[in-house]
């Protein structure tokens, strides 16, 4: 049912857009360039993020130190920033007048260009990749490490026999999800790419929609985007190696004794890279935080409620889809990725066209934001929950079957206790993502029902940069707190 819902909304809204097509013409040269660039930058960004995430997540897995958990939470923050805030944060660090060029004293380095796009996308997605890989590392039972130790494995043996199979299993999915996120980015790509050379398909969709209002182009470009993402999705699901470890006894993770220095270098570099732009927003925004009028606080509250509702919906749909994937077929995984490949703009337009005849769009602004945000969160949640779900069924499924543990009791006694951690993490991510999303609300927007990201844009268009930074800081703090609460909540008394 959830699968058909996702298909219905993704494809249905697209059809609604297609129905308004008035003629068809081939792709222009500009659009081909956009397709090429989108594919290229998404591929490189995803590859770099994943490659860098391997040593970083390994370091976090192997080492223990004071503040490790807080650092892991904080490192997740770039991923949830609203685009405009992230751009300004990055520029405060890497821009031509940023602290980096001031410290280094050379201005020859310019962030603007393809490398800028990739830098920004790595900044957004490295934390996600790190967290997902960290989860992968955690899925290797500690008994296996002990076994390796007793067989006097060298670090190379450990890597080949324990870590590599895990990476082969986890990486295709992580790569896919980052690839998908990068394809739909456009404001970041344009700004840091230095101009029209960095045009993505999503920008072409936006242009066709907002400027030319050429719905046939919107539809064609959306289909191309879906196909491009579909291709990568099929490939990555197909090459994902099945790797399975026998269930362990949930002993604590082993702390490594070797390679400490290297691990801490990885952690330090990642921290500096990810935290600096956030720190700049903190410094820049702390002055404006107290200038914020009451109405901004109300929008913040509204954002929190929308985010919580979207998270609830996303979690339920994800659990259902995950169970379909685990119990029936891997094919269902495709449905989970559909929403992210569809541009939120197309989803929003489709919903608008469908609903306009029936109700006042302003009235369904918040409900539609909830639904679309929830859909946008499913791919991430699915990525987090499914592997853990599959592991637990592999390890305990047969035992549960023999005990005739089915339905609610299976969920209550087997699935929930063991999935609490991943569910908490995915809920945390969903809530934070929904907080920062501007998405569809632009079309449906209702002046009295604004969300916090909208208020940031409004403050900026009204020249009020200080307050805008203050509001951005507020958003950042709220998102991180909500993320932390869910993530932490999922770990209390959790077995894994």
């Amino acid at each position, binding site marked *: 049912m959830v699968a058909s819902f996702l298909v219905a909304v993704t494809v249905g809204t697209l059809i609604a857009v297609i129905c308004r097509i008035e003629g068809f013409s081939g792709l222009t040269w500009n659009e081909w360039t956009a397709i090429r660039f989108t594919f290229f930058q998404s591929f490189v960004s995803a590859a770099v993020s994943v490659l860098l995430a391997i040593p970083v997540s390994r370091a976090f897995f192997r080492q223990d130190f004071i503040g490790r958990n807080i650092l892991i939470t904080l490192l997740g923050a770039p991923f949830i920033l609203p685009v*405009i805030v992230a751009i300004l944060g990055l520029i405060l660090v890497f821009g031509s*007048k940023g602290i980096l060029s001031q410290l280094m004293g050379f201005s020859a380095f310019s962030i603007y260009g393809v490398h800028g796009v990739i830098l920004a996308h790595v900044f957004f997605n490295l934390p996600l990749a790190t967290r997902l890989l960290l989860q992968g590392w955690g899925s290797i039972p500690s008994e296996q490490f002990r076994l390796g130790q007793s067989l006097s494995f060298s670090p190379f043996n450990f890597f080949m026999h324990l870590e590599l199979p895990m990476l082969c299993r986890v990486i295709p999915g992580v790569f896919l999800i980052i690839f998908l996120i990068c394809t739909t980015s456009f404001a970041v790509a344009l*700004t840091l*790419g230095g*101009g*029209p*050379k960095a045009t993505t398909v999503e920008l072409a969709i*936006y242009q066709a929609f907002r400027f030319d209002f050429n719905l046939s182009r919107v539809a064609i470009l959306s289909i191309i985007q879906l196909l491009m993402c579909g291709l990568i999705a099929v490939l990555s699901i197909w090459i994902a190696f099945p790797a399975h470890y026998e269930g362990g006894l949930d002993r604590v993770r082993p702390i490594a004794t070797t390679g400490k220095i290297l691990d801490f270098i990885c952690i330090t570099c990642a921290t500096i890279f990810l935290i600096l732009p956030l720190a700049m927003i903190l410094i820049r925004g702390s002055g404006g935080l107290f200038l914020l009028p009451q109405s901004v606080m109300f929008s913040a509250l509204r954002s929190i409620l929308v985010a919580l509702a979207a998270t609830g919906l996303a979690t339920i749909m994800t659990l259902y889809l995950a169970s379909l994937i685990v119990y029936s077929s891997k094919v269902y995984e495709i449905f989970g990725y559909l929403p992210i490949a569809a541009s939120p703009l197309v989803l929003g337009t489709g919903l608008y066209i469908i609903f306009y005849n029936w109700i006042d769009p302003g009235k369904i602004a918040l409900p539609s934001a909830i639904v679309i945000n929830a859909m946008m969160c499913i791919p991430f949640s699915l990525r987090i929950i499914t592997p853990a779900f599959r592991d637990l069924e592999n390890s305990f499924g047969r035992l549960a079957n023999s005990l005739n543990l089915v339905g609610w009791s299976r969920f209550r006694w087997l699935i929930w206790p063991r999935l609490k951690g991943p569910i908490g993490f995915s809920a945390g991510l969903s809530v934070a993502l929904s907080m920062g999303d501007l998405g569809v609300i632009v079309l449906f927007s209702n*002046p009295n029902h604004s969300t916090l990201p909208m208020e940031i844009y409004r403050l900026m268009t009204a020249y009020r*940069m200080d307050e805008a930074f203050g509001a951005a800081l507020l958003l950042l703090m709220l998102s991180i707190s909500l993320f932390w609460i869910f993530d932490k909540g999922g770990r209390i008394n959790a077995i894994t």
Partner: protein
Amino acid sequence: MKILLSIFFTLVAASTAFAKPTLTVYAPDYFTSEWGPGPKIKQAFEKICDCDLFYVSGDLMPRLMIEGKRTKADVVIGLNTDVTFKARKLGIFEAHEQDTSSLSIPIKWDDKIFLPFDWSHTAFIYDNTKLKNPPKSFNELLNSKDDIKVIIQDPRTSISGLALVLWVKSIYGSKSEEAFTKLASKVLTVTKGWSESYGMFTQGEADMVLSYTTSPAYHIIAENDKSKSAAIFSEGHYFFTELAAMTNSSKEPELAKEFMSFILSETFQRMIPTGNWSFPSKLDRNKLPDEFVNLPMPKKVLFYTEEEAQKYRDIVIQEWLTAFQK
């Protein structure tokens, strides 16, 4: 329960029977926000009209194109001349019947459908404490040996970006592509919208930013900061005006007409300078805030009618793209 329900419905019926008429106004998001002119205008109009003014905010053009003749708008406010060609073709607007002979805008206005409520020009804003010798003409900017870095908006996604390429076209005509090539070397980056550009500029990222001649007024009046100025170019500046129109499907045509005439009233016009940070379309110069009177203004105004803007936009965007992708 039944009694409660019937009481409820009677109350609802009664309240709708006595409810004031509602005027639905579609406006851009910045206009209706707490920091835009919208809320004050609503308040002032409701005082005189004995009605409720209800704003619907968001992207105007996509919305009107989707809704077409079924639109619920009585009045649409915030379109500009570079997009009105398409809006007019929708056939959903009605003549405003206002006297436009004595407007305080720098061009002649005789459009029967669209009524200007404010105006400004596109211009590059710079920090006069850092850039001591700003270019005095577009030519000077394009050919300057100095390493001036500019941030502009993308004409494919931003209305001010579109105004820039039309501005260049109106100066350079058939040589516009060459001008874009020169401009490209001065451009630090291109952003999706005005906010990103202006945000980056105020962080000190670039020397100049594409904005409006009236932008410095905000910094002078609201922040008491005189460091931001508009570079005035001798070739002239592209005129930018925002418009309002009433729909022919309105259920409250009288009210809509009242609002159209309210737009040109002094009450409304006086709210524009410090509410929208632009010049009002019908207000004597001596009623403007001093800071606005003292703003440096271009001697020459360049302007494309909506037909011309429509004719050139695709061509000029393509020229811009070709030049910037080199």
